[in-house]
């Protein structure tokens, strides 16, 4: 009995922390419609900040608390809203979620940089360490009581705030009707900033309380706070009382499980599977169940015109792209050192995982946070299936994982948007905890995935594997484009654009969603199955999936090129960190930083770049000139006048910095075009003229120089030649109604419609 009481108190105090976190999550979700995945990371950062002030700089506890909770946290919340979240109105849920993922990655990177894990840190003390109080025959630490008290205070304060103050009422009013709030004289932007500040304070409070119970470590802090998401979902992301109840249930379940599993009669394994992972998975299981029993969300009526737009490439472009990708990789793979080959290989593997999101997220608009989990399952299947890596084994592995993918989607199929995304996250965590972390699955920490066995071709080298993965990416990419052009592809798009319209037209939404999930899981499985090396479960951890999702969205999740861009960017990040150690810290926060810019450009980087090239296609003169330039650079290389590296850097410079600006330069009327050409030529001369092999001593630095060259001279040329003819990319069916078409727009319309007038 006494024991039960002890565990009830432990459970309630854990639940209290969950409640504080979850209420912060609800506050921002209801006022701005953004589910902040980075909420936990905010708490983590606050805990570290408090540690810094309190234990490293020796401030008194009240002062340190005050500075952290009442100055820094609100400030952080305000800035988040002002800089990042405000730009997100009118974007899809995928983009909104990715931006919070970016924030998450950014904060973890920041914490890793400022407080490196190997740095020695004094212990993080509980409040009133050592003081306990005697209740009903057991000892309870003051810290636990304080935690519990905080939750009660938060509940009361939130209740009063939301229902008794004008700011609180305005927070609810904005949800009801934003423009009416304005007509009343309220300022929705201020309300949103207040909500984000409040939410950051709640996250910070929970983070500090939790750090007293646990250790001051980044990962557990972030993940434990993620558990609170389950409580928020139980509250329907809306009701605070139900959120608090959910949090209490979670805390109690955890504590009681701990109590019972200590007993000797408690099974330690089930059918050979160890059950030690269960406790950590309780919140995830609760999250999954809460999601599944949630009342069906209503379908969104009407079509929504999102800010993102993607074009489907023609077959010619697609095949050309695939072939040139393979050729380029075969070409440069000879020049790379072993470690760089491995980095690039990693980039392509990640690109395949990102590609798996294109049909699912890009086309069908369904968010998944678990792409790497399917890759992991692919790797496990490939290594466990008989056949030692021949093509049949690969096919079998892909099929199995695709079926698993569909099976996962089946219960989650009635969910959409954020709920679906969270259920995939729950799945990923479950698989990690219950399958990957089993000794049966990953014998002694890792397994070796057999190398794909293709008759007559030996790919048993890093270079071979690089070429194999580039080829696999190209083929899968072609497959994805073929899918987009097929009947199923159009149904996927319909699913994203208007589920209601699609359903009323007789489309089977369930089948279409299942197909999307199965295809996506299958593609991701390829990435794992082709690993051809030893792999460890950490590689497929849930947290590793987030940067991939993020960079796929940054690259442009609607296009194959975007997936490639995203994957290589993530892989390239590692190259950069390796080559220039002083940049290591920047590379940690870079994925986050790039993602945060998404609000400004929701279609992703790739579609922006390809927009730049589009006008070129109509001008044969310019195309020939560009090709001639390319051949010229190659000729210099072939005749040994310049080195391979100069060839590579010059070629990329020509392609990225010169070609997109050619039209502006040639059509330019003023003398500025002479300046523009001068800048472009200077850049080209540097790229070709420098003896890269001698002057710069590592591949990473060469790549860095390349990026700088393109950025400085490319953007410079563009800025100077700016007065180029502007083409408005309005939707073709609107042009000409109210405003007469300019000749440029007419050209554009013809191209869009594929007709010649």
């Amino acid at each position, binding site marked *: 009995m006494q024991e039960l009481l002890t565990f009830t108190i432990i459970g309630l105090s854990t639940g209290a922390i969950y409640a504080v976190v979850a209420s912060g999550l609800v506050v921002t979700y209801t006022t701005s419609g953004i589910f902040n995945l980075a909420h936990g990371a905010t708490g983590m950062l606050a805990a570290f900040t408090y540690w810094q002030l309190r234990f490293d700089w020796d401030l008194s506890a009240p002062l340190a608390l005050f500075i952290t909770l009442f100055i820094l946290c609100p400030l952080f919340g305000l800035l988040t809203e002002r800089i990042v979240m405000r730009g997100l109105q009118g974007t899809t849920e995928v983009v909104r979620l990715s931006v919070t993922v970016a924030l998450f990655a950014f904060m973890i990177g920041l914490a890793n940089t400022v407080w490196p894990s190997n740095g020695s840190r004094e212990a993080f003390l509980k409040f009133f360490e050592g003081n306990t109080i005697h209740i009903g025959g057991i000892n309870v630490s003051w810290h636990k009581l304080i935690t519990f008290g905080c939750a009660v205070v938060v509940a009361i304060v939130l209740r009063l705030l939301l229902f008794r103050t004008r700011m609180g009422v*305005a927070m*609810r009013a904005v949800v*009801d009707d934003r423009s009416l709030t*304005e*007509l*009343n004289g*309220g300022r929705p932007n201020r309300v949103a900033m207040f909500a984000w500040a409040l939410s950051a304070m709640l996250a910070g409070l929970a983070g500090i309380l939790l750090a007293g119970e646990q250790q001051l470590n980044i990962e557990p802090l972030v993940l434990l706070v993620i558990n609170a998401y389950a409580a928020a979902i139980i509250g329907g992301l809306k009701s605070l009382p139900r959120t608090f109840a959910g949090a209490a249930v979670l805390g109690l379940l955890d504590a009681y499980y701990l109590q019972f599993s200590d007993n000797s009669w408690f099974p330690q394994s089930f059918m050979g599977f160890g059950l030690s992972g269960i406790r950590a998975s309780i919140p995830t299981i609760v999250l999954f169940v809460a999601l599944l029993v949630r009342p069906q969300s209503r379908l969104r009526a009407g079509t929504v015109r999102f800010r993102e737009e993607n074009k489907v490439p023609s077959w010619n472009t697609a095949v050309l792209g695939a072939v040139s990708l393979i050729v380029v990789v075969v070409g440069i793979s000879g020049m790379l050192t072993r470690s760089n080959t491995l980095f690039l290989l990693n980039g392509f593997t990640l690109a395949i995982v990102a590609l798996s999101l294109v049909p699912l997220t890009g086309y069908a608009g369904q968010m998944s946070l678990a792409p790497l989990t399917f890759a992991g399952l692919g790797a496990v299947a490939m290594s466990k299936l008989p056949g030692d890596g021949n093509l049949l084994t690969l096919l079998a592995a892909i099929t199995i994982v695709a079926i698993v993918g569909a099976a996962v989607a089946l219960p989650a199929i009635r969910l959409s948007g954020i709920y679906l995304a969270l259920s995939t996250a729950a799945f990923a965590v479950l698989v990690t905890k219950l399958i990957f972390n089993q000794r049966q699955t990953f014998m002694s920490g890792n397994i070796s995935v057999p190398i794909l066995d293709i008759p007559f071709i030996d790919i048993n080298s890093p270079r071979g594997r690089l070429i194999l993965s580039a080829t696999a990416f190209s083929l899968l990419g072609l497959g994805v484009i073929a899918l987009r052009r097929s009947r199923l592809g159009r149904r996927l798009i319909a699913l994203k654009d208007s589920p209601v319209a699609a359903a009323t037209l007789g489309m089977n939404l369930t089948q279409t969603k299942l197909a999307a999930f199965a295809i996506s899981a299958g593609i991701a499985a390829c990435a794992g199955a082709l690993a051809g090396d030893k792999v460890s479960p950490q590689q497929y951890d849930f947290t590793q999936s987030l940067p991939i999702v993020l960079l796929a969205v940054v690259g442009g999740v609607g296009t194959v090129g975007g997936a490639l861009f995203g994957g290589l960017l993530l892989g390239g990040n590692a190259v950069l960190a390796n080559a220039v150690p002083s940049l290591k810290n920047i590379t940690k926060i870079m994925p986050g930083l790039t993602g945060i810019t998404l609000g400004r450009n929701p279609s992703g980087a790739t579609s922006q770049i390809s927009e730049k090239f589009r006008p070129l296609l109509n001008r044969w003169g310019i195309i020939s000139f560009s090709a001639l330039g390319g051949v010229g650079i190659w000729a210099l290389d072939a005749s040994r006048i310049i080195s391979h590296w100069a060839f590579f850097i010059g070629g990329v410079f020509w392609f990225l910095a010169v070609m997109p600006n050619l039209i502006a330069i040639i059509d330019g009327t003023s003398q500025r075009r002479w300046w523009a050409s001068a800048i472009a030529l200077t850049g080209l001369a540097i790229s070709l003229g420098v003896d890269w092999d001698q002057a710069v001593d590592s591949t990473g630095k060469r790549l860095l120089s390349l990026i700088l060259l393109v950025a400085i001279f490319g953007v410079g040329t563009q800025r100077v030649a700016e007065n180029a003819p502007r083409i408005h990319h309005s939707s073709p069916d609107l042009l000409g*109604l109210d405003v007469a078409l300019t000749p440029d727009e007419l050209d554009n319309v013809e191209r869009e419609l594929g007709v010649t007038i």
Partner: protein
Amino acid sequence: MNTPILELRNIRASYGSIEVLHGVNLTVGRGEVVALLGPNGAGKSTLIKVASGILRPSAGQLMIAGRDATGASANALARAGLCTIPEGRGIFPNLTVRENLLMATYSGHKLSDIEHSTYARFPRLAERRSQLAGTMSGGEQQMLSLARALATDPVILLLDELSMGLAPLIVSELYQQVAAIAAEGVSVLVVEQFARTVLGVADQAVLLAHGKVQAFGKASEIGEDVLASAYLGS
């Protein structure tokens, strides 16, 4: 010559790339009640959105009391005394009646004063002060939205289709309140489909069709034939 309190100069407005107002000129003099008439889809509500600052015009100027207010935010205009009752029900359905009135305090008035004046005018709202506004009847909801105009004594009042979906008896009751506001010297721009209801209250009338002003003049002088041709599009 006293400057008009509200003036739209050559206003153009569009949703995305579809232009809805093609150069509209309109003035509301001090203390005047101007009726804005026109068929469905004429752009009346769009014009109200522009005048209240919700929608930024693509061209033209919005002048308030002789000062250029183009691009000012809706909330700033509201706090400066421009009260807008938008189309549909101008209430927050998930807030209680009392909380709805609390939102009206952004105008600078005290909640107790607002409550007092509202419950005096509409005793039915007093009984329902803790009820969610969205669960009240259409007429009660419209009373609540009009209460904001009555209690915050604005300089300009913009009304968009007060009558939508209401019984004629309630409509005339509401318009009596509008007449009372106007009698206090508040300038009013009122959109209405039922021309006859509103022309009794209005000094001036403006006829809008296809995003352009088709006719304007003294309310008493707008003839049946002009109205008919505008509404029937002949």
